[in-house]
C-alpha cells in the first residue's frame, strides 16, 4: 500500500520502432490529455529509444506538457528487459498516477515488466477510460467475449496502469506551435545487464485499418486465395482486413487483424467474407455502422452480427459483387 496522494500526472508511453511511432501512442496522448485536464494534472510522454528527440517533439505537438526522453543504443530495437527496467526507474523516481500503454504486442509485452516491480495495478486491453474527481481511474474492458464490460479500479496502489486497445480512441492532429518541455533522463540500463538479444527484425507495411471507412475482411473460408476478396475490396475502395485464422495462416499481415487480440475498427461498412463470427472477432468489428456477411454456412454466427447476409460461396459472390459495383448496375441475379 502506498500514499496515493504522492502520485500525480498522466503518463503515456510513446511506442516507437526505429523512429516510427505506433499510431495507438498518438491516440493515447489525445485521451491522456482529456484525463489530465479532468484532474488538473500534467500529461507526460515517455519516449524510449535511440535518436528520438524528434519523436519527443512530436509528442509535445500532440498534447504532452512534457516529454521524458531516455535515449541510448541499448533501447533499439525494443526488448522487454531494458525498456522495463528504465521505465520502472522513472516510475519509482517520479511517481505518476496514471500510466497508459498501447495494447500492441510490444506494449503488452512490456507493461507487466513495469507493473510487477512497482506493485502497480495493471488492466489489460482497455477500451474505455474515465477518471473521477479524486483521480481514480476507471479502466473498462470487455470480458467474456464482449458480453460484459468490466470496470477495473485500483484504489490502494500506484500507478494505475492500463494497456489500451489500438483504434478505440481518436488521435488529435499535431499542433506544431504547441510548446512543452523535452527532458532527457538518465539512462539506467547497460547492455551488459541485458538477458536478451534481437537477432533480426523485419517489418513491412503497417497498414492502419483503424481509420478506414470501408473494410473487407477475409477469413479462413478463403482458403488462402485472396484474389476474390481483394477484387471486392478494390471495387469498394476498401481496406483489406482479416480474422485471426487468416493471419495465423500467414495469408495476411498481422497489422490487419481485427478482434480481441487485433485492432478495433469502426468503418461505415464492414464486409466479413468467409469469417465464422467467433466472439473474439466480433469484438473488434461490432462498432461498424453496417455489417455484411458472406458465408456459405447459413448457421454461421456471423449472420447474427450482420445487417445483411448472403449465404453463398465467396468465390462466386465476391466477383459478382465486384463486377456489379464496377458496372454501377445492381442486378438482382440470384446465386445459389
Amino acid at each position, binding site marked *: 500500500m502506498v500514499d496515493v496522494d504522492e502520485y500525480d500526472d498522466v503518463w503515456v508511453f510513446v511506442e516507437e520502432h526505429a523512429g516510427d511511432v505506433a499510431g495507438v501512442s498518438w491516440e493515447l496522448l489525445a485521451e491522456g490529455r482529456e484525463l489530465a485536464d479532468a484532474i488538473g494534472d500534467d500529461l507526460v510522454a515517455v519516449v524510449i529509444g535511440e535518436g528520438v528527440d524528434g519523436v519527443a517533439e512530436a509528442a509535445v505537438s500532440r498534447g504532452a506538457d512534457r516529454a521524458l526522453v531516455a535515449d541510448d543504443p541499448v533501447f533499439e*530495437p525494443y526488448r*522487454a528487459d531494458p525498456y*522495463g527496467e528504465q521505465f520502472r526507474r522513472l516510475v519509482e523516481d517520479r511517481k505518476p498516477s496514471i500510466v497508459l500503454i498501447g495494447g500492441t*504486442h510490444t506494449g*503488452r*509485452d512490456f*507493461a*507487466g*515488466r513495469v*507493473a*510487477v516491480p512497482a506493485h502497480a*495495478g*495493471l*488492466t*489489460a*486491453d482497455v477500451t474505455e477510460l474515465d477518471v473521477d474527481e479524486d483521480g481514480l481511474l*476507471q479502466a473498462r474492458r470487455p470480458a*467474456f*467475449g*464482449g*458480453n*460484459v*464490460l*468490466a*470496470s*477495473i*479500479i485500483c484504489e490502494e*496502489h500506484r500507478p494505475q496502469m492500463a494497456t489500451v486497445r489500438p483504434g478505440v480512441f481518436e488521435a488529435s492532429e499535431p499542433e506544431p506551435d504547441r510548446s512543452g518541455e523535452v527532458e532527457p533522463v538518465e539512462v539506467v540500463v547497460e547492455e551488459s545487464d541485458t*538477458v*536478451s538479444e*534481437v*537477432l*533480426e*527484425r*523485419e*517489418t*513491412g507495411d*503497417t497498414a492502419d485499418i483503424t481509420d478506414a471507412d*470501408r473494410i473487407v475482411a477475409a477469413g479462413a473460408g478463403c482458403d488462402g486465395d485472396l484474389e476474390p476478396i481483394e477484387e471486392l475490396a478494390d471495387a*469498394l475502395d476498401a481496406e483489406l482486413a482479416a480474422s*485471426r*485464422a487468416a493471419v*495465423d495462416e500467414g495469408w495476411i*499481415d498481422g497489422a490487419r487483424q481485427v478482434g*480481441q487480440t487485433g485492432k478495433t475498427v469502426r468503418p461505415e461498412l464492414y464486409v466479413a467474407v468467409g469469417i465464422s463470427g467467433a*466472439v473474439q472477432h466480433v469484438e473488434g468489428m461490432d462498432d461498424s455502422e*453496417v455489417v*455484411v456477411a458472406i458465408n456459405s454456412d447459413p448457421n454461421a454466427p456471423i*449472420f447474427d*452480427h*450482420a445487417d*445483411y*447476409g*448472403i*449465404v453463398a460461396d465467396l468465390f462466386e459472390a465476391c466477383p459478382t459483387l465486384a463486377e*456489379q459495383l464496377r458496372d454501377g448496375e*445492381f*442486378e*438482382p441475379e440470384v*446465386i445459389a
Partner: protein
Amino acid sequence: MTEPWNVVVCVKQVPDDDEVTIDPDTGRLDRSSAPAVLNRPDRNAIEAALWIRDEVDARVTAVSMGPPTATAVLKEAVAVGCDDAVLLSDRAFGGSDTWPTSLALARAAEELDADVVVCGEETTDSSTGQVPPGIAAHNGWAQLTYVEDLEVDSDDERVIARRDVEGGHERVAADPPVVVAVAYGENEPRPAGLHRKLFAENEFEPPTWSAADLGVEDEVGLAVSPTAVGGMETVDPVERAQAVVDSPGELLAALDEEGVV
C-alpha cells in the same frame, strides 16, 4: 548440454467460453453451467514444452494454480506427455489478480529450478496476457512473448524465438531462465497416447503446494491484488438487421439505400 533442462508449462482450467451465458433476469454471468476445460492457448504451450523435450534432454512439469478440480487439466497435460505436474491450490490464493498469480507461478518455477517456463498467450476467461511477463518480472528472468516458433541453441544454451510483432516478426535470443508465451494456434498439439492417458486418469495424482509451501502466504489473494473489479455492465448486443438477401444485386441496392456504396 550436460544437465537436462527443467521445463515448466503453466496451464489453467477455464469455463468453456462458448458456454458462458448471461442470466437474462439478473444480467449476471452464469459460469456455473459452462463446463471447465483446459484453456485453449495452453494446448499450444504444452506442445511447445514437449517440443523442447524432443530437442534437448529435458523434463516437463505442468503447473496450475486453481481449485482442486484443476487436477483435471494437469491430468490432461500428463496424458499428452508431460512428465509430472503440480497443483498450486490454497484458499489463500482466492481473489488473486495477475500480480499475485504470477508471483505464485514464479515461485513454483523457482522451486522446480526451471530453465524455461512455457505459457499460453492468454486465457480465454480473463484474456489479460499479463501472467507470462509477470512471472518473468517477479523472477527477473528473460521473456519471449507472442512466440510463433522456437529454436534451442544448445551450444550457447540459449532459446531463440520468432516473435510476432506489429507489421512483421523478429527473432530474439534469450538466456535461460526464460519465460516463453506461445501465440495461440501456432503449433499443432499432439494427441494423448492411450497408455499415457490411462496412466494420467487412473494412477497420476499431482502433489498440491500451498501458499505457505511457496513462502507467499502474505503476498497472495484479494488483499494484495492491486486491481479490483469496480463494476460489471452487460453490454447490449449491437442491434443488427440480420436480413438475409438472395443476390448480390439485392445486397448492393440495400447498401446503396444505406448510402455506404
